[in-house]
């Protein structure tokens, strides 16, 4: 049974220069308890994909131009804002990149966790408090009962991210989306947070989508990987396969840039050039202008995602030919 299935999702933004597709024909799916990694540079459309699934993009300027987001047998793109509110929390929840700014500075962390539960379940205050303490305990905040009344500014970045996780899991979601959950943290803390996410997956059995530009994070956590470039999915495979036999030249470039947990900026030294702006993407393959293997055909048509090996697909005209030694 698929937990989440995204089909041909296209999200467009109204800009000063007309409507621009931030992501195009994005398709992927996720099983219960599975961890899917989405990789790409900033601007590749990873976060827009996540926010579209959550229904958190401001509309306008954003608009879902095409596609479906199937979750628990329902198409989330068809739901009203009210119905979506019931999905956020107990259905899908999300943690963000910046633990320093993602918690409201003027409310205690206990208040922020308890109100999440209260928004979805009718419980007496004492029970809310008990649940909040239990969650803080689970994410590894020492002496949770005492820290419940602390304010975010009294905690370190790593602790705040733990609080964010506690809040996101407070309603037992079936799916957790983690958008760059460790990017803003120190290296040692990064590993702890990733371990925590894996442990909680084992305990709660929820599916996780982890969004990152860091191949090291993917190697540590993901079961499957999806690579995005300029708003499109360009390769998808089980994690071992990607590291073993990348098919797309861009993925190969990514892997060559010495990705590791210590690397925190998404600067791809091995690939010349930069990601094109959404409004000025080239015709044909988006990666062609930067690709060392591009030929004239690459500049005319967009290569579609094609299953080239079992459970391994890529969007490149020359993938097969380049892969064979």
């Amino acid at each position, binding site marked *: 049974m698929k937990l989440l299935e995204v089909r041909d999702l296209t999200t467009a*933004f109204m800009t000063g220069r007309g409507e*621009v597709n931030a992501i195009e024909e994005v398709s992927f799916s996720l099983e219960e308890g599975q961890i899917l990694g989405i990789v790409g540079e900033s601007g*590749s459309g*990873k*976060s827009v994909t996540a*926010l579209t699934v959550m229904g958190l993009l401001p509309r306008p300027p954003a608009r879902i131009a095409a596609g479906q987001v199937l979750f628990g047998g329902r198409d989330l793109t068809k739901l009203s804002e009210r119905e979506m509110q019931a999905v956020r929390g107990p259905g899908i929840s999300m943690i963000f*990149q910046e633990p320093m700014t993602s918690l409201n500075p003027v409310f205690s962390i206990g208040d922020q966790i308890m109100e999440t539960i209260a928004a979805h379940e009718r419980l007496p205050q004492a029970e809310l408090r008990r649940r909040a303490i239990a969650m803080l305990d689970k994410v590894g905040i020492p002496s949770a009962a005492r820290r419940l009344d602390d304010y975010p500014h009294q905690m370190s970045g790593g602790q705040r991210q733990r609080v964010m996780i506690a809040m996101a899991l407070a309603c037992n979601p079936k799916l957790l989306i983690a958008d760059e959950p460790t990017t803003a943290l120190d290296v040692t803390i990064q590993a702890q947070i990733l371990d925590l996410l894996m442990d909680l997956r084992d305990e709660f059995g929820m599916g996780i989508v982890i969004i990152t530009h860091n191949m090291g994070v993917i190697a540590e956590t993901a079961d499957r990987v999806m690579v995005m470039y300029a708003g499109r999915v360009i390769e998808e495979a089980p994690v071992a396969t990607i590291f073993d036999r990348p098919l797309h030249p861009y993925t190969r470039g990514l892997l060559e840039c010495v990705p590791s947990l210590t690397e925190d900026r998404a600067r791809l030294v091995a690939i010349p050039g930069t990601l094109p*702006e*959404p*409004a000025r993407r080239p015709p044909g393959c988006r990666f062609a202008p930067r690709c060392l293997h591009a030929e004239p055909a690459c500049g005319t048509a967009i290569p579609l995602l094609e299953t080239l090996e079992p459970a391994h697909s890529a969007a490149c005209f020359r993938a097969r030919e380049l892969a064979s030694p």
Partner: protein
Amino acid sequence: MSDVADAEGIALKREHPARATLRRLFRHRLFVTGLFLFAIVAGIGIAAPWITTVDPQRLSMRNKFLPPGEAWVFGTDNFGRSLWARVVWGAQLSMIIGASVVALNAVFGTLIGAAAGYFRKLDNALMRVNDALMAFPAILLAIAVTSVLGPSTLNVILALSIVYIPRTARIVRSSVIVLREMEYVQAAVAAGAGHWRILRHHILPNAMAPMIVQLSFLFAYAVLSEATLSFLGVGAVPPTPTWGNIMAEGRDFMREAPWIITIPGVALMITVMGLNLLGDGLRDVLDPRLRIQQ
């Protein structure tokens, strides 16, 4: 939301920064509207001797309480004086007072603010006095000062300067404090440049933007406060035509001749709104950190 599509990044042509600023100002709708309104009032004030034919103080009891019309554009007041002439000369006085207060603030606000911000030893003493002057309600202090000095145009200018210079100085001081710590200033200090040179070449030019914005709003406050003082009878002495005096005299004839109040009132409103729009535009373009719109 770092990944949300942003469609910036047009290749910018190189252009002289001052010209680029001017171009942006003149594309700013609010700024242009404000400049237009203010220019009308200022133009009328300057042209006062040529666009009025009657002495604003000449009484003509035969012609009292004439409504605005063909013969008398703005009508006449309770003494038969031409309201057009009085409002036009009132505009001149408002402009003179506004411009003088702005000039005094530009000079002394900069001097005090720069001294306090740059020389740490002076900071505490200067700012305590500054805080104390700012603690008084503005109009009350202005009234008290004019009452001590005696009511006259010059004393109104002095009183309003005493009220507003501390506020200008505080703005200059906070820019100077930030700029003083900048690396290029520290480099100039290390290179042995004198205090005066550092202030003049490195700090003050960069502290100008917030002050220019402040001065345009200050012009509005000065015009407004002057009208308030003369409305209360502690400004320029009647029969000198100031907008506040005209309105104060019109109070007793609200029923018969409301135009004596409404015409200078609208003139005052147009001036203040023009300056506020001008200030908003300047702030948006020169000092985007303080931007209110968007």
